[in-house]
């Protein structure tokens, strides 16, 4: 993955830039020693690394505005960073950039149970937002699998999803308002505790813009009352095709599960070897979870099981207790770790129409043989959000590149069948150059024109989202 060459003029002005940043922030909030800036050299896409010019850790919206004003005046690119858990390289620095980390901004600013929202600084982790309202029986719905570590700032930037979005939606459906600082230091408020935008839906536009339109410092999030309970059913099938049909039939029947998770045989075998969850050795496995009172759960699981039985499952196991639920989820939750035990892996997140599932899985299997790289599939089947995990060996020369080419072919296939390149991870650098497969030149041009409005000099996270060649003229201007 190519990154633009750093601007030598900026590198030569490092000391002056650092001095100006130190003038507006506490001493320990400006990191510029090369030994320390290395901590910010990558995010969770660890194949790519580059220490930044400097990293700053402001503690308030005012400090963020001060930093951005300086960088704007100095013409220094800024890469915003939440917790650095992006799988797409969304927070990857360039050598001439300042990393703006929100890690010190973790306060809860307001909780309002009567109106069902919480306002937080965006450095707060996803899980600790739920943690802050848990005692009152509430939770924040989007639950990316990195929720223990990932920050709301990154969730908003990437419009993060999670396993339960079939019912609750993704970040953008649960975000009521933001405080955002534009690249020139202007602070804007979008949305609030009320519903729906006054004018254009700038809040909807900002969510998922990968830190390219502004730095979101505070967020007002919708909180929900926890359901009385939740339990899954595990269903094993002899073919991916049949499992796919079963998913469609469940959805058509009017049951709306909170999650429908899918694992294929390579993934089932890997997790069994790793976590011993007691999964059947079959071609495809579904975990379908429903919520409600005990009686409501029983009724819904009964309906789902009835539908599944028509498809002749090799195994069907309704959870009857918390213990059994934990056991059913154990393998799914350790799937990534299990695959990681086998080898390095690249995790994709293309989304497809549910009806294309069997065909896409078959093609991925064929391509796996063509490329000579193993793939395990574990994903959110209810919404078609796939997670093929391609195994490769980082120490073997050429393997990463081979893996990336394979990944690109899978994502192109997702687009061909009516889906998209990324369902919840974001484009970042990883899928930047594949954007031309999803969008025409004018579709990309209008998106870049949106960035022109918010950040005319293209200083915020500039080398992401759009193919480098397409954004070249704007970044150089």
């Amino acid at each position, binding site marked *: 993955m190519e990154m633009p060459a750093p601007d030598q003029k900026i590198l030569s002005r490092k000391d002056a830039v650092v001095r100006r940043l130190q003038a507006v922030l506490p001493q320990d909030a400006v990191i510029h020693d090369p030994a320390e800036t290395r901590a910010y050299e990558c995010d969770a896409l660890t194949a790519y690394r580059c220490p930044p010019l400097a990293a700053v850790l402001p503690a308030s919206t005012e400090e963020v505005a001060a930093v951005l004003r300086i960088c704007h005046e100095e013409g220094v690119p800024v890469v915003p960073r939440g917790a650095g858990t992006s799988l797409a390289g969304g927070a990857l620095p360039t050598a001439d950039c300042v990393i703006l980390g929100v890690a010190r901004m973790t306060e809860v600013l307001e909780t309002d149970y009567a*109106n069902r929202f919480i306002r937080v600084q965006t450095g707060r982790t996803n899980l600790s937002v739920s943690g802050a309202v848990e005692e009152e029986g509430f939770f924040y719905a989007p639950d990316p699998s990195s929720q223990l570590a990932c920050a709301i700032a990154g969730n908003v930037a990437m419009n993060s999803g999670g396993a339960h979005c*079939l019912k609750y939606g993704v970040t953008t459906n649960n975000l009521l308002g933001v405080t955002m600082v534009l690249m020139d230091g202007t602070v*804007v408020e979008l949305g*609030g505790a*009320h519903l729906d935008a006054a004018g254009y839906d700038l809040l909807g536009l900002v969510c*998922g813009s990968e830190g390219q339109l502004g730095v979101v410092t505070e967020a007002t999030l919708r909180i929900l009352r926890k359901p009385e309970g939740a339990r899954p059913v595990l269903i094993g099938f002899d073919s991916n095709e049949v499992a796919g049909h079963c998913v469609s039939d469940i959805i058509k*029947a009017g049951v709306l599960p909170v999650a429908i998770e899918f694992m294929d045989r390579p993934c089932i075998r890997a997790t069994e070897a790793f976590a011993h969850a007691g999964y059947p050795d079959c071609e495809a496995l579904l975990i379908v979870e429903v919520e409600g009172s005990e*009686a409501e759960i029983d009724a819904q699981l009964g309906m789902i099981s009835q539908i599944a039985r028509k498809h002749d499952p090799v195994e069907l196991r309704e959870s009857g207790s918390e213990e059994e639920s934990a056991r059913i989820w154990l393998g799914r939750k350790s799937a990534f770790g299990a695959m990681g035990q086998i080898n390095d892996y690249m995790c994709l997140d293309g989304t*497809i129409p549910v009806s294309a599932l069997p065909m896409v899985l078959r093609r991925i299997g064929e391509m796996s043989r063509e490329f000579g790289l193993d793939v395990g599939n574990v994903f959110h089947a209810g919404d078609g959000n796939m997670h093929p995990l391609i195994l490769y060996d980082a120490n073997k020369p050429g393997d990463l590149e081979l893996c990336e080419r394979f990944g690109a072919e899978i994502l192109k296939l997702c687009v061909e069948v009516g889906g998209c390149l990324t369902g919840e991870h974001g484009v970042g650098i990883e899928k930047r150059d594949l954007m031309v497969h999803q969008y025409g030149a004018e579709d990309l041009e209008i998106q870049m024109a949106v960035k*022109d409005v918010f950040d005319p000099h293209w200083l915020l996270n500039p080398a992401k989202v759009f193919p480098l060649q397409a954004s070249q003229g704007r970044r150089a201007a």
Partner: protein
Amino acid sequence: MMTPKSEQELAEAIAGTDAPLTVRGGGTRPIGRALPGQTLSVAEMSGITLHEPGALTLVAQAGTPVAEIEAALAAEGQRLAFEPMDHRGLLGTTGTPTIGGVVAANVSGPRRIQVGACRDSLLGVRFVDGAGRVLRNGGRVMKNVTGYDLVKLIAGSYGTLGVLTEVSFKVLPAAEAVGTLRLHGLDDRRAVAAMSAALGSPCEVSGAAHLPRGADGRPVTMLRLEGFADSVAYRMGRMQTLLGSFGDGEIDRDAESVAAAWRAIRDVEAFAGQPGDVWRVSVKPSDGPAVAEALDGAEVIYDWGGGLVWALTPEGTDARAALAGIGGHATLVRASEDTRARLAVFHPEPAPVAALAAGLRAKFDPRGVLNPGLMG
């Protein structure tokens, strides 16, 4: 009136004009100021292009009548989750509401509190911008973070950034059973407290409205539950217990009468044909009663648990004064031409936000031909 029959014709029509165009679907929601220029209707671009019940997705051309979509979905036991309002009664218009108009105005109904607004169900758009470019964003899958979300930007932009040609939606199963709990005699604050208690419970309330003056002249508070019959019955019992301190109330389980009651809320039927201006105010629910009090003399209806206040005010009243010190916004949905010109239909924006909006308009409609002046 220009009535292009295809996206290509539409693109040529827009590219070929430098005079202002008034964009419309069925013309049933003339919210905003009367605009100069020739009318451009997308009504001829009509038809459902795809409906996959097993994937909960529907794609339709912008001019497709809402009724046609609702019928096609109903045939598969599905529906548009966000329950779009029909403006005809309130605005005294006739014609056929189109799905493009619903999206352009981001129209949602009572279920917005549970499933989100129109924009939350919208998966993708195709549109022609003011330069005549055919553009698309999003798609037909439920999770999509590929590039910027222009889908949300276009929803609710009232045709000022582009003319919609095709829209795709996530749809949801229709409910097997429905019921409304009606509480009587609560004042506005008590009513909002009751609705908050219900909405903050695990009962999965899909509608929460309060009429200070119900059909019999007394206040009535309505809470709707939907789902499988056993589940609705169970949750109804639970909610009644939870709200015991607000009175016993009564339960309506008759599907037709429940539907009629919520349609009346959705379409603000109480204000149809009544003299006066109509304002639509969005605030946080607990601020709703304060807005009503500040609008002394106005008749109000609360939806969205108190967060959506419909106000019928004496002609020429500036309802935005009632929002002083309260976050939120007010749209002047119905008023005379003079009042709409004087008070502005859409809520004024702070300068930096207005600058962003103007900047976006300049990019999407560089020649200023699409509904110019409608949103600033």
